């Protein structure tokens, strides 16, 4: 188990025993970023494995303490760069909970729709790179073809392809652009056949099954004990999904299944995530059908939410509020919240402490990659070195998320 580990010293006497130390990463194409694994191997069997992280540590938690609340939103994009909208949402929900704020229905539905598109985006990158690690190069090209469509949607809605920063405390930055919903509809109608395409290439492919089935098994007890969340936990048979169990941002209005598997190997995690793609596209379809036609996209709180540009040109009050929010920020009542949402990787939690001023006293991000990485040694020890790459891919780690 991961916890009984003693430090692996690199210097040892030659010929002292039969194991050897292998450094995997930090510059390794299959570690999905700058993850370094110190692996002790006996022949091809792994004796111990120890993740070494921190190469991407940027001190975002410290930086937030010097920013106004609204200035933190763009920082949250950079944490998990594959699902920017999820991070925006997690942060905004936490601050809105601190403020005790209600968000208009249309803003909530747009948030849910964009979050599910983000989940698809993130899972597509996972599927493409995971398949490429195993040796199925074709899938990568198909996945990134659809991801390009999603990035165009993001660009359309926020002006940015990756670091969207589209959500604001109290709502959204601007309303959706013209024809956006019909573009999403096009994508949502087309995408299920794309999933079939990926599954045709992989699901019953004998090489894929041989490389994945029975590999990196994790029991439900270990998964819970080691703090794994998201698809990694659900593939071990623990049925928990924060969207369904503790609904936020209007998720209680949507019908979806939570895919689980009791097998607990890499193939099970693959199946769970591919089914999640189908569920997510179902939620997007429900959003499109039930989207409130018109209405506010920001809460009615002039001291917190920036005024519309048009009003600023004609109304003195709006101009004053704009000036005050930009120069002084807004005070948040003292207190603390922990708000967790279901990111594509698992439980993304924000713990925010306010001391009553316009800057957060402490912001802590509970990032799913960081916790899921603890499960890696349990998956790999005692198994073959060739399976490490499959195990890393199966926990869907993003090192920006891990190191913050």
């Amino acid at each position, binding site marked *: *188990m*991961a*916890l*009984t*580990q*003693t*430090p692996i010293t690199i210097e040892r006497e030659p010929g002292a025993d039969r194991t050897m130390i292998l450094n995997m990463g930090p510059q390794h194409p299959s570690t999905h970023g700058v993850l370094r694994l110190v692996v002790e191997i006996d022949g091809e069997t792994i004796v111990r494995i120890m993740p070494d*992280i*921190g190469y991407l*540590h940027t*001190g975002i*938690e*410290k*930086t937030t*303490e*010097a920013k106004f609340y609204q200035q933190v939103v763009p920082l949250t994009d950079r944490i998990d760069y594959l699902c920017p909208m999820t991070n925006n949402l997690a942060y905004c929900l936490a601050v809105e*909970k*601190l*403020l*005790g*704020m*209600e968000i208009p229905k249309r803003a909530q539905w747009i948030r849910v729709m964009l979050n599910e598109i983000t989940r698809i985006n993130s899972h597509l990158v996972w599927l493409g790179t995971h398949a490429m690690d195993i040796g199925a190069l074709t899938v990568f090209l198909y996945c990134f073809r659809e991801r390009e469509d999603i990035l165009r949607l993001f660009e359309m809605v926020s002006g940015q392809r990756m670091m969207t920063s589209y959500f604001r405390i109290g709502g959204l930055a601007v309303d959706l652009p013209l024809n956006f919903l019909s573009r999403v509809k096009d994508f949502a109608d087309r995408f299920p056949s794309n999933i079939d395409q990926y599954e045709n290439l992989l699901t019953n492919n004998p090489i894929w099954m041989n490389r994945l089935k029975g590999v990196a098994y994790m029991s439900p007890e270990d998964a*819970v*004990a*080691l*703090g794994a969340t998201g698809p990694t936990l659900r593939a071990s048979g*623990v049925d*928990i999904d924060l969207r369904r*169990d*503790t609904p936020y941002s209007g998720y209680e209005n949507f019908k979806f299944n939570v895919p689980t598997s009791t097998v607990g190997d890499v193939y099970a995690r693959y199946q769970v995530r591919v089914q999640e793609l189908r569920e997510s596209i179902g939620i997007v379809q429900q959003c499109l059908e039930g989207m409130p036609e018109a209405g506010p996209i920001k809460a009615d709180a002039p001291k917190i939410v920036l005024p519309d540009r048009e009003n600023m040109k004609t109304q003195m009050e709006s101009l004053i509020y704009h000036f005050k929010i930009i120069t002084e920020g807004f005070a948040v*009542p003292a*207190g*603390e*919240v*922990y708000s*967790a949402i279901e990111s594509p990787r698992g*439980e993304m*939690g924000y*713990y925010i*402490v306010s001391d009553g001023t316009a800057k957060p*006293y*402490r912001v*802590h991000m*509970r990032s799913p990659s*960081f*916790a899921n*990485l*603890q499960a890696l040694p349990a998956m790999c020890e005692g198994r073959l070195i060739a399976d490490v790459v499959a195990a890393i891919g199966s926990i869907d780690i993003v090192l920006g998320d891990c*190191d913050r």
Partner: protein
Amino acid sequence: MPLAPAITDIEQLKDKPEVAALLGWNADALDGAKFDRNELIVWIKRDQLLPAAQFLRDHAELKFNFLSDVTCVDWYPSEPRFEVVYQLLSIPRKSRLRLKVKLNSDDARVQSVISVWQSCNFFEREVFDLFGITFEGHPYLKRIMMPEDWKGHPLRKDYPVEGYR
């Protein structure tokens, strides 16, 4: 939606199963409780943390089997300076609880809960690295984010946000 005022009186919080169970187990271990913004916070005395963690995990009705997160808040310059924060989740009951332990700056040590929840491994290393809190009984308490030869603990409030130390 105006905020409801926070409840800090333990007597009023006795209807919460977590508080009631902890009071029934060992009323001396509690150092206060608070219900604010629909979230329950319980302060535990430092030397009682490990038994309290064990109790909360193994209690037949509470079942806090999942430790989501461990972090810390620095209240410099007031004392007790540090608050170590544990976010618990009960997967069967889908409910959360926040445990807190207050630590003085001259004795910033607390027992590791690794024997109760193994997932605290990385989280406690992170708090050790960025706040300088020692977790007794942790099997491998080394820096995790910063380089091993780094001086100081960046998330402490007396550590500057920018500029050279």
